[in-house]
């Protein structure tokens, strides 16, 4: 097992298909899009390769930056809410009796068996003006109305006006949290499941209460899972265009919608490509800094 690196042939056989797949279906398209981002839209929506920075200059115009900023805070808030909702769930499953773990994990991933579009539409059924929530509220309103009429106050309740629960930023956040919750729960669960329980017992033994143990021991030790889960949810939320498109209002446009618009309706591929890369560059820089920091840390450890 240890000298698998030395066996070049086996290495090539196992790594070959994956490398080929990534190269052909990921790297090459990304490079093509990257080249497009320096191009120019022709009058019929064609793409001319002209190597200009015009698209990038357009991408950082205030109106587009505003959308980008909005995507960041909606993505960030969704991620935070996912963490708040998902942590107790992951913890609960990790600490559940063994025979309950797999059924509970199945429940978490069960929504994935339904198409995301259907799941998003389901929220319209729930939150719409004739949806489950409003119907429920309407029914309660009717009952109260009947009660008040009975005691001689027929006009107290007035007419029921359905609440405008759909088509705003909050609905978008609800949708994003709902759709991405499993992406947070699963990596977090994996980390918590491996965690040695005696760390938590040691903390209690040393006099710390449950909350102190949570924040001083459990959360720091679960950090790899928290970071992975949050990164996944944030990236997926920020780039999501289906949820804001279906559940958002007129001002709920996110960067994903803008990019989709440019590629579809506007047929301005070069600008769409530039917008995509405007989002990707910071991510690249983040990863480069992270890699450098890890290497620096390694060296510091080597010296110690």
């Amino acid at each position, binding site marked *: 097992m240890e000298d698998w690196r030395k066996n070049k042939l086996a290495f090539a056989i196992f790594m070959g298909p994956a490398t080929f797949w990534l190269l052909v279906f990921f790297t090459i398209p990304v490079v093509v899009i990257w080249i497009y981002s320096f191009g120019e839209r022709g009058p019929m929506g064609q793409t001319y390769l002209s190597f200009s920075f015009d698209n990038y200059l357009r991408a950082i115009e205030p109106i587009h930056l505003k959308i980008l900023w909005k995507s960041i805070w909606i993505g960030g808030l969704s991620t935070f809410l996912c963490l708040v909702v998902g942590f107790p769930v992951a913890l609960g499953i990790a600490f559940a009796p063994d025979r309950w773990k797999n059924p509970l994990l199945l429940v978490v991933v069960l929504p994935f068996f339904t198409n995301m579009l259907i799941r998003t539409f389901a929220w319209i059924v729930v939150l719409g003006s004739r949806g489950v929530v409003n119907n429920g509220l309407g029914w309660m309103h009717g009952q109260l109305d009947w009660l008040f009429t009975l005691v001689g106050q027929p006009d107290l309740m007035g007419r029921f006006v359905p609440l405008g629960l759909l088509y705003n930023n909050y609905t978008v956040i609800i949708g994003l949290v709902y759709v991405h919750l499993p992406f947070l729960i699963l990596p977090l669960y994996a980390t918590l499941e491996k965690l*040695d329980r*005696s*760390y938590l*017992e*040691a*903390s*209690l*033994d*040393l*006099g*710390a*209460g449950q909350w*102190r143990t949570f924040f*001083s*021991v459990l959360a*720091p*030790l679960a*950090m790899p899972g928290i970071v992975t889960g949050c990164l996944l949810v944030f990236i997926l939320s920020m780039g999501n265009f289906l949820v804001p498109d279906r559940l958002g209002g007129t001002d709920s446009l996110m960067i994903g919608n803008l990019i989709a618009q440019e590629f579809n309706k506007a047929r301005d591929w070069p600008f769409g490509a530039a917008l995509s890369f405007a989002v990707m560059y910071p991510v690249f820089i983040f990863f480069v800094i992270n890699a450098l920091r890890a290497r620096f840390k390694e060296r510091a*450890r080597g010296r*110690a």
Partner: protein
Amino acid sequence: MTDAKPIISIRNVTKNFGRVTAVDNVSIDVMPGEFFALLGPSGCGKTTLLRMLAGFETTSGGEIEIDGQAMLGVPPNKRPVNMVFQSYAVFPHMTVFDNVAYGLKVTGVPKAEITGQVEEALSLVHLEDYGRRKPDQLSGGQRQRVALARALVKKPKVLLLDEPLSALDAKLREAMRLELVRLQHSVGITFVIVTHDQDEALSMADRAAVMDRGVVRQIAPPGELYEHPNSLFVADFIGKVNMLEAKVAGQSGGDLVVEVEGMGRIAVPHEGAAAGNISIAVRPEKTLLSADKPGEGVLALKGKISDVAYYGNESHILLDTETGVQFTSTVQNDARRTESSVAIGDDLWISWAPGNTLVLAE
């Protein structure tokens, strides 16, 4: 120690996991300043008992008192005990200093006092210069010292140690035994240690409780456990024994007369009564091998050597005796020679003084 109040009083404690009884009606008193060992094979309930003392398991029945206080319903963080975990559980995301300081910080000890106390605890375990290291830069033995310092800095009434030496290599383990005893003497705290290793319990503990399938079989100082085991289980678990089945035939003065197949009627010194079918046993190092039939006044069996196991300092010689039971005799290799004085197939006599016979009624 006789009229002192016990620091730990375990009375009729039982623990059930579903239908399994892990600890069955156990009663133990541990005195202040004692080094007490819970000894037994794996699955005997010793760790469960320790975890009940720490508060990580609830009792299914019975009472536990620590320092005069009933522990029922008291959570682990409110108990006057601290624990050294088998895996050490040294927090990997904190420095050595922060690990030791943790227990003080969470209970609101003023910052000014923490530094001094932590340094004192670290010097107690000889880790003065390691405060700024992270656990992954320490060896297993050093991590264990951190776990010890972290528990001792809390100045608990009782320190609980769960198999503390099992993860160390043999040489280090022996050094740590002495170290733990030294530490216990210098801090004067009661130690309760869980171990499956009889050598560990014998060499460190003032007293030990031998447990078997949830039940305490004997509580005694090491010497008494070894020389006066009260049952076949204790005799067999602590050290090696050569065992013979016997039938009580009567009493004669201070001696018990028993009938042993192949030996006839023999008299062995025994206090107390015994009747029916019992076992008699003798430790391998208390036997002698001789080519000629030994004289009067000793118990002897004839046999043929079936194996010689060489351990450097001593050899274990296995003998198929005439009674059909295999006996082991330990021979000190006290002269410098590489050839064994006996060979497989030799006919020899194995003998021992009647006073060295263990009478095991259970």
